[in-house]
């Protein structure tokens, strides 16, 4: 598919799309990467909501793209599902058609194919890429995995996750498998999850000390993996968060993550999400943001948070296609609602969606933006339809 797969707004636009809050004196200005989940377009927008750059990728993302300091976009592509007999990939995931790195003009600079690459990736300082991937769990372990819905294995198999560190030459120089290090008595699945999907790793960040911070959605656990031994040296989550995404290490040593809240075990019938900052030294939550009222901010799946240099936090409420910036006091100082809707090729449960897997803000002095033309004039035709003047008040 080489055409832009963007649908226009719904027939009854009930809400203003695009940037709808911008308190310029309180925001941390920069450029935000908008990567609609059901489209193969990737956009950079300015603070007013002008589209200033666009990449057209070969496929919809699996699940997103990241803008690198070298000015390229690193993006994972989606392949069609293989036949149901193909046991080399799990059915519930879609299949990767490869990680691609493209330059500012969209030319292919690097590609790495691992069918089992899932969710995300991390470009390390040394130029290698850390890749989360799904891996089938050996039978003798699979039968002892606890939780989940009985009988819901993937064609009899239980999948978990692993990590591969890949060099620019495509050589795998470090491997890690969750099944080797998880505790079957502790890491019990959410009772409503499919047993085909034991852990559901949805995040990967290589830390300055070389260890990897990751998140396992279906067991409500985030953890740090020791590079040398593969041991889990810190973990947190069960009873505190539910189906979380995208933990990230902050300069102050705390970890910021998106607590989706899809399947909390507190008996509550209200769903709400939170941005949570936890201190790994004490395991205490030191800051959180909830909507007012709490259920007004909820994304069952996907999503992320990013701490900005001025102390604000950028939050992507993925399922609603909403990105917003809050101060530490919880005041919303910027907000954007994705106007690009479409159907997902593989995951029908999204419906006609404007979901965003994640969003990132890049500062004006970000290395990758050096000498780049970021004028709204570049995409005058898009701004005429979806820009701040077009979408009105």
């Amino acid at each position: 598919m080489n055409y832009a797969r963007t649908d226009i707004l719904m027939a009854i636009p009930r809400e203003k799309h695009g940037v709808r809050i911008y308190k310029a004196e309180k925001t941390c200005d920069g450029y935000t990467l908008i990567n609609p989940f059901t489209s193969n377009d990737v956009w950079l927008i300015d603070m007013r909501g002008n589209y200033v750059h666009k990449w057209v990728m070969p496929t919809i993302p699996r699940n997103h793209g990241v803008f690198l300091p070298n000015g390229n976009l690193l993006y994972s592509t989606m392949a069609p599902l293989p036949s149901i007999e193909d046991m080399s990939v799990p059915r519930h995931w879609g299949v990767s058609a490869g990680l691609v790195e493209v330059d500012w003009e969209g030319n292919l600079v690097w590609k790495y194919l691992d069918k089992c690459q899932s969710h995300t990736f991390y470009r390390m300082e040394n130029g290698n890429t850390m890749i989360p991937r799904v891996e089938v769990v050996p039978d003798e372990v699979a039968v002892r995995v606890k939780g989940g819905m009985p009988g819901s294995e993937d064609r009899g198999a239980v999948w978990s996750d692993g990590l591969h560190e890949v060099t620019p030459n495509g050589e795998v120089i470090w491997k890690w498998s969750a099944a080797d290090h998880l505790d079957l008595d502790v890491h019990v699945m959410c009772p409503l999850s499919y047993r085909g999907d034991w852990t559901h790793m949805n995040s990967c960040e290589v830390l300055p000390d070389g260890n990897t911070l990751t998140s396992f959605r279906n067991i409500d656990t985030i953890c740090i993996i020791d590079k040398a031994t593969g041991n889990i040296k810190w973990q947190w989550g069960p009873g505190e968060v539910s189906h979380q995404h995208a933990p990230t290490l902050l300069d102050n040593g705390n970890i910021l993550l998106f607590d989706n809240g899809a399947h909390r075990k507190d008996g509550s019938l209200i769903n709400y999400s939170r941005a949570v900052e936890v201190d790994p030294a004490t395991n205490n939550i030191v800051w959180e943001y909830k909507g007012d009222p709490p259920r007004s901010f909820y994304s069952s799946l996907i999503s992320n948070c990013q701490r900005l240099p001025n102390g604000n936090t950028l939050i992507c409420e993925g399922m609603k296609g909403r990105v917003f910036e809050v101060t530490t006091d919880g005041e919303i100082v910027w907000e954007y609602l994705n106007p690009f809707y479409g159907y997902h090729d593989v995951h029908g449960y999204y419906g006609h969606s404007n979901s965003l897997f994640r969003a990132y803000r890049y500062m004006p002095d970000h290395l990758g933006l050096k000498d780049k033309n970021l004028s709204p004039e570049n995409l005058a035709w898009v701004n005429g339809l979806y820009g701040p003047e077009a979408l009105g008040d």
Partner: protein
Amino acid sequence: MSRIQKDVSLDVFDKGPKAYRGYTLFSPVGGTEVYLIDMKGRPIHTWRMPFEIGSHGVLLPNGNLLCAVTDHEEPLADFDGAAGSLLEMDWDSNVVWRYDDPYMHHDFHRMPNGNTILLRWVPTPNDIACKVKGGLPDTEREKIMWSDSIREINPAGKVVWEWLGYEHLDPEIDKVCPLCFRNEWTHANSFIVTPYGDILASFMKTNTIAIINKENGDITWRWGGFLTLAHPHDVSLLDNGDVMVLGCGIHLAGMEAGYSEILQIETKSNNIVWEFREYSVVDFYTPCKGSLQRLPNGNTLICEGDTGRIFELTEGKEIVWEYVNPFYQTSPIYGRNNMLFGVYRYGHDYQGLKGNAPKATKPAMVPQEKGMPEGKKLSTSKEQVVRDRLGSLGY
């Protein structure tokens, strides 16, 4: 809309004759007022309750309001839907009848003969409770698993009929949702009395809707279960015998996008013959409560309870009327909210409005095109629903 809670004005979206003309009754949960508004959202009448609304109010054919209220002192006051009294009030908010039952909850129905049927909690005998499967372990309420009873009382408050859920439910079939507390077995939240005198009820925690024979208490029809229905809330029976249900969609198995749906089920085949989900599915989501009412013009009045949004939907899935409850309350269970449990539309000629509401100048109902625009009829079996849900995951 479920995206962002906004403080709303009294704006209403009204597509004129396409919507069933009349008045809409709604009861902000946790508030003390029940409102009747016209099609333009203008308040026509307000009832003022001496206690907080526990679930909802209904305008009876005799012109009185019947409403379930709570003083938060009931033994199970923190259970969702708790109410301690049923109040019947005249147009001027004078209480003309009152029935107290500290274990009453959610729904009630005034029969033509003057009796009232209501839902109430009863403790499940231990020997049955320990056989009930599902739910989070060790989450009973002080070691009691409460279950539902349906009770009929006469105007003097005497119990003339009672159905005890635990005598008729089957622990092998009626399993508690894996993520819910075992403080309750079923959490019935809605029922209607069918023209045959049976009871059609919705059991939230067992993800089931069922028809109960009033003579012997047998469950003569059941529908639901994991992957087909998640936390039903409100059932309705159509003239053709089909059942409609609002599936809240919370605690849906697998990859839960967070959306609600309305299903119409043909009871003979158990197939789904009509369904509604929003175009962008997360735009219609009410995890906790809501209602639906099939209107005489073939449209359905839907209450997205959690967001306080009421809308009227044609069979062709067009929204022809929409209103959002602007009256926020603060409740001990839900915090600050504008939730609505149940909402009703009454036509201009409704008996209960005679003499009280402004005379209609336009007819309530305009002949409409019926059926799906493409002429394609749905008939989806439960097995197909499960296959579709798994298929959306890639299986």
